[in-house]
């Protein structure tokens, strides 16, 4: 202690330091339940000894500062696990709708309509001249055509609504990346000034990074300025320092659905995860597969029934015409469009060619053969009956949904573990804060006491002088 007055100064600094520590503790306690808040710790830095000689008294606390507890590795892993979570949620939401179209537990649907259609030919074979049985064939055929169109359009509308969701998700991504770029610049500023505001800003940015990770698969890394650089899986930069590069969802020639473009480059196929990845996966890969299967079924049905129908004779003994409106491929060699456009060509029940050629109206030869198409392997290059092909589709849709659900559950558990781990590092522990309050309060009291003592001493000295 070089002088009593210097001592008073040290005491004052000690009071300030303990007060700062108490404020930090209070901030921790009030934010105990704030998501993404990282608890702060006070660092006391002792001053150099003052004076020389054998007894070199201490210089007190020269500065205090706060530190936030963050583990960047865990933060990063949380974002990486949030990506498949967002993807699975999008896939599950879409497949739940598919389920409603394909699940026939109520005994209605495409399979029931197929069975009904072929059964109506079989019933007709019992009395082929019967007008009401003939009408029933046309009714069942129209129901079947309607069912194809209903399921097809239902699947297509899921595709369309996913496409709209792509646009919404892109704008959500853009507002998030803009916010991150803005935070980048403020963090760099606060960092430069050494301001404590940096911690709160980093907490906010982490929240934004988590939100973004649920939307799209990105990787990020922090630069020296404290800013993060964000890039998509394909390497397109979304944020660099205080700049954000907007994604755009645009229509492009050759595809009916929105494409994702960054800086003029189409990166749609690079997007593998997050909500956006899930939406694109459903829209561009799962549903097109289901739709193609329906088209294959419809095209095979039209072709086989029409071919067989032309080999029989109608009630008037005339050779059968087209039963279904013949399907003309829009793209040569492709069945695309068959399920959506299937319709029954015959309107007069007498025109159904139930009889064998050259046989009378009571012959059922052709009706039986038409009924038999239901049991013939006519789809998938002759590998499956219509019903088997459909049950394959049910299996595929069901297992894709169950895979997504199982993955989502696993993902949820991993995330929980990681978030718990993050909390154990960054979260506020109220017990610890209670101890800190006592500690800092006592230190404050002690410093105050020290000042009182110095004051007494100073009085003493002044008394001697006086």
């Amino acid at each position, binding site marked *: 202690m070089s002088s009593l007055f210097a001592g008073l100064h040290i005491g004052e600094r000690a009071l300030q330091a303990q007060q700062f520590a108490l404020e930090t503790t209070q901030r921790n306690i009030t934010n105990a339940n704030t998501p993404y808040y990282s608890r702060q710790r006070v660092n006391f830095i002792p001053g150099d000894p003052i004076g020389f000689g054998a007894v070199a008294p201490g210089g007190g606390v020269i500065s205090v500062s706060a530190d936030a507890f963050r583990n960047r590795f865990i933060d990063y892993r949380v974002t990486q696990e949030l990506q498949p979570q967002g993807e699975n949620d999008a896939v599950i939401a879409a497949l739940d709708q598919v*389920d409603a179209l394909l*699940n026939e537990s109520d005994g209605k649907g495409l*399979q029931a309509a197929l069975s009904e259609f072929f059964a109506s030919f079989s019933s007709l*074979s019992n*009395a082929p*001249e019967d007008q009401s049985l003939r009408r029933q064939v046309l009714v069942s055929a129209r129901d079947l055509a309607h069912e194809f169109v209903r399921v097809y359009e239902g699947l297509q509308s899921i595709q369309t609504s996913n496409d709209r969701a792509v646009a919404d998700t892109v704008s959500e991504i853009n507002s998030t990346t803009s916010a991150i770029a803005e935070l980048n610049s403020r963090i760099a500023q606060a960092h430069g000034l050494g301001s404590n505001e940096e911690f709160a800003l980093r907490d906010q940015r982490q929240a934004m990074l988590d939100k973004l990770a649920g939307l799209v698969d990105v990787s990020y890394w922090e630069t020296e300025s404290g800013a993060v650089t964000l890039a998509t899986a394909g390497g397109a930069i979304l944020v660099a320092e205080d700049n954000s590069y907007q994604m755009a969802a645009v229509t492009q020639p050759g595809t009916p659905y929105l494409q994702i473009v960054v800086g003029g480059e189409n990166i749609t196929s690079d997007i593998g995860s997050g909500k956006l990845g899930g939406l694109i996966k459903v829209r561009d890969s799962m549903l097109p597969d289901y739709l193609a299967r329906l088209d294959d079924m419809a095209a095979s049905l039209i072709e086989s029934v029409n071919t067989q129908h032309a080999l029989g004779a109608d009630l008037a003994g005339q050779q059968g015409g087209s039963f279904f409106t013949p399907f003309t491929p829009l793209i040569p060699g492709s069945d695309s469009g068959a399920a959506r456009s299937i319709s029954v060509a015959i309107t007069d029940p007498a025109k159904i060619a139930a009889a064998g050629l050259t046989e009378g109206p*009571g012959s059922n030869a052709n009706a039986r053969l038409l009924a038999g198409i239901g049991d013939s392997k006519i789809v998938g290059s002759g590998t499956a009956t219509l019903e088997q092909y459909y049950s394959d589709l049910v*299996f595929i849709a069901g297992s894709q949904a169950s895979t997504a659900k199982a993955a989502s*559950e696993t993902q949820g558990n991993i995330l929980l573990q990681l978030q*718990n781990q993050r909390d154990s590092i960054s979260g506020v522990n109220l017990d610890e804060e209670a101890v800190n309050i006592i500690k800092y309060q006592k230190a404050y009291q002690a410093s105050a006491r020290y000042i009182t003592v110095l004051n007494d001493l100073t009085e003493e000295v002044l008394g001697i002088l006086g």
Partner: protein
Amino acid sequence: MIYRNLLHGAGSLRENIEAANRQISSGKKLNSLADSPSGSAELVDLRAELAGIDQYRENAGSGGFFISLAESVLSSAYNTVTAIYTRGSAGASSLYNADTRAELAKEVRSLRDELLSLANTEAQGRHVFAGSQVTTAPFTLSGDTVTYQGDLVQNGIDVADGLQVQQNVAGSTVFSKAFSTVEQLLTALESGNQAASQAALSQFSEALGDISKARAELGVSLATIQNAGTEQDARELAIQERQGKIQDADLAEAITRLKANETTLEATFTASTVAGQRTLFDYLA
């Protein structure tokens, strides 16, 4: 952290409870395709098979109706032809004079008309002995000559996978011999030619044979339908059992699961109120 764990734990317990509840209220354990993709696909196959069985039953019923009808018509026809034969043998005896023979011929004609009506049997707009020309009566009478207008087409009907039965017999193969024999008999009776009567009578066994043969064919169809029906019932039962295994909830198990999850959920809440409540602040004055 306690609250996040609580939320996660309670969330998955709630899901379990909801799933058990759904199973109990619907009686089904398969409520979405994802619950069991392979089970759902198999259900599609099983439902199609059941629909197939229903259709075979339908065929056995409405297709089989014409078979049993024809069979019973043939039974009457057999009796009618036998009655004609009895009149014919009486007329061939020397005890009968021209007057009584004319009386017999009248009776024979009336029986022949009965036979004609049987051969032209129509039900639900279908002449059952007309081959495929079902919309017109197959036999026409001109003088005492009966002519067949139908064809020889035989319909099959499908009553089980790969199993078809004959639905009809063409009228010409059943009745032609009978009608021509009766025509001969009438000529002989009215002319009083005993030798010709005997000759006509000798043809009756063949005419009756044709009818019996047709009856036998239809009888085979009916027996096949019956056997197929029994097999169908057994298959249906097996399919329904399989369906039940795939989709029906085990209620006892589901209720137990519901209770177990509810208890765990309550315990979780209790534990969290204890764990979440206390911090050091509670003990500081």
